[in-house]
């Protein structure tokens, strides 16, 4: 029992409620949400410290012991993800101070942002499959509101599709929970794991596993990502950055959790399918990243490639691959938030999102340019930076599991990621300078470079903070690995998790 576990939920929740009453006062809203973000990161770090020193932390709501009540469980993976979420949330918040615009700020932007964090942290911490559904919905409903906030034509059009696809996948999620409850009679994940192991996973339980796989693949953009490139192109940068960093990763986390804790008995079926989907995701994402010549699309397809990459780690399902998947997941959350922030700044600096219409930005924005370059290298996985260790572990795990085709695809997709980002860097920053800065990109609601330089500096600083994290995570990979291997241990040996939750 550890009551701190509920704080990553409670802090943003109370902040959001408070912010609703501060509607007109934008400065107050900024201060309150900024400070609560810091507090939240502090609490998340405390939880990580507790998990590191005392093992898996559990919280039984109202003292009901599992399987009866709702359980909150922080194993190493959840604690790491909650910390990453709160840190990224804070940086994206700082970024949005100077980029989101007063119109959106006074229409409940900050409360919705906090509700999104509630849903994401809740999904990471919960130990109950139906509570996971509820946390998903908290996250998704705030994301519906954030994606349409501002109400431009593009946003309205894309949010209809985004909502529809998520309503369908939520309905499937409830159906999957219903089937699973019908077969096992349990909802607590640890209890479910025990009962699935007793019943023997075959026949109907495999079908349910595949249904869960479809649900989470829809949320994570794993193979079923057709909704993602359009939807993530619609809202302004600050919102896309937090979406790119968190939303698909929650789906991935749910995949990893469900297929390492509950349905891990029949690898040939479930993990085989995940492997194929991961391969297809990497290949199709690579095609998309090569095909488009506008920044939002290229970045969106980069999300898809990395989703495939992490799912490949899950498909190999040995210690190395799962370590790598956790490491890469952490890296990718930070790096994608950074990439989208920088991409948004490039768009607002150039006044267009088409690569063919920009160039020569390096003269006016040297810092932005080199930060973008470093980020591109980090995401491709160049050794001193953070993407390397995770990719190395995943590919090594893939070879151990004799998934040679997938490993080759993974390595090839890294080259394509590098190519697509460097092509973007060269097109935007090199060559002749074009002064098109006055035009703004209306549809994305991007406020262009009419901003004061102070705003530019603050936005750049929030990017720089994330870049420091990316570099530190690369250089201190050995230190991060200490945490990550512990997370991988729990994933490879579900008994550790089950014992921690079901102990009396």
């Amino acid at each position, binding site marked *: 029992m550890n009551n701190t576990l509920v704080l990553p939920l409670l802090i943003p929740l109370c902040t959001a409620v408070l912010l609703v009453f501060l509607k007109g006062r934008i400065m107050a809203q900024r201060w309150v949400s900024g400070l609560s973000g810091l507090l939240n990161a502090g609490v998340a770090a405390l939880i990580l410290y507790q998990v590191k020193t005392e093992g898996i932390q559990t919280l039984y709501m109202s003292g009901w012991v599992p399987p009866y009540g709702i359980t909150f469980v922080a194993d190493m993976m959840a604690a790491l993800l909650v910390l990453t979420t709160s840190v990224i949330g804070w940086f994206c918040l700082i970024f949005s101070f100077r980029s989101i615009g007063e119109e959106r700020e006074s229409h409940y932007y900050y409360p919705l942002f906090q509700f999104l964090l509630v849903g994401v942290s809740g999904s990471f911490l919960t130990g109950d499959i139906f509570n996971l559904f509820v946390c998903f919905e908290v996250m998704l*409903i705030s994301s519906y509101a954030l994606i349409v906030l501002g109400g431009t034509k593009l946003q*309205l059009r894309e949010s209809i599709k985004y909502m*529809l696809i998520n*309503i369908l996948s939520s309905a499937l999620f409830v159906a999957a929970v219903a089937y699973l409850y019908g077969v096992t009679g349990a909802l607590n994940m640890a209890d479910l794991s025990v009962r699935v192991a007793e019943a023997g996973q075959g026949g109907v339980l495999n079908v349910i596993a595949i249904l869960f796989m479809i649900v989470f693949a829809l949320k994570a953009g794993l193979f079923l990502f057709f909704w993602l490139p359009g939807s993530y*192109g619609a809202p302004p940068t600050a919102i896309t950055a937090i979406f790119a960093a968190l939303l698909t990763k929650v789906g991935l986390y749910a995949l990893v959790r469900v297929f390492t804790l509950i349905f891990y008995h029949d690898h040939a079926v479930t993990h085989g399918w995940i492997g194929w989907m991961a391969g297809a995701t990497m290949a199709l994402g690579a095609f998309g990243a090569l095909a488009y010549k506008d920044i939002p699309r290229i970045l969106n397809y980069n999300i898809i490639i990395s989703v495939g990459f992490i799912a490949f780690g899950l498909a190999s399902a040995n210690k190395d691959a799962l370590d790598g998947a956790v490491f890469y997941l952490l890296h990718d959350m930070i790096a994608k938030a950074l990439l989208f922030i920088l991409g948004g700044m490039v768009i607002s600096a150039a006044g267009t999102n088409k690569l063919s219409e920009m160039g020569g930005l390096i003269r006016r924005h040297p810092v932005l340019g080199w930060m973008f370059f470093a980020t591109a290298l980090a995401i491709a996985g160049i050794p001193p930076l953070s993407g390397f260790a995770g990719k190395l572990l995943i590919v090594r795990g893939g070879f151990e599991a004799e998934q040679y085709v997938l490993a080759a695809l993974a390595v090839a997709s890294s080259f394509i990621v590098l190519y697509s980002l460097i092509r973007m860097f060269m097109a935007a920053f090199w060559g002749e300078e074009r002064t098109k800065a006055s035009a703004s990109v209306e549809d994305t609601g991007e406020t262009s470079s009419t901003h004061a330089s102070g705003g530019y500096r603050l936005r750049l600083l929030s990017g720089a903070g994330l870049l420091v994290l990316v570099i530190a995570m690369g250089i201190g990979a050995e230190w991060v690995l200490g945490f990550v291997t512990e997370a991988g241990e729990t994933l490879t040996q579900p008994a550790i998790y089950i014992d921690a939750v079901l102990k009396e």
Partner: protein
Amino acid sequence: MELYMSLAIGVLFTVGVYLVLSKSLLRIILGTSFLTHGVHLLLLTMSRLKTGAAPLLGEKADAYVDPLPQALILTSIVISFGVTSFFFVLAYKAYQKLGTDDMEQLRGSDDE
């Protein structure tokens, strides 16, 4: 009894999927409502439709029906109610601003 419920749920799913695949936005929203109805009935059915008293301790019955799925359904109903009302308003705003409810015309590219 479970068989008949399953058949009814199957019909609801079929109708829901058919409506979601249609062109008009309102029909799509109706389709999602059918789907959620189906899903809620599925939750109820999957916990076995044994006869028993309503889950109230005051009934002092020998056997009660399973209270858990009822709580799950109640949660799911309010969530889907919230989402559906948001969806309706979104459709209304989209109709006002885009001037169409035909999904075919909502495709478009970024270049318009």
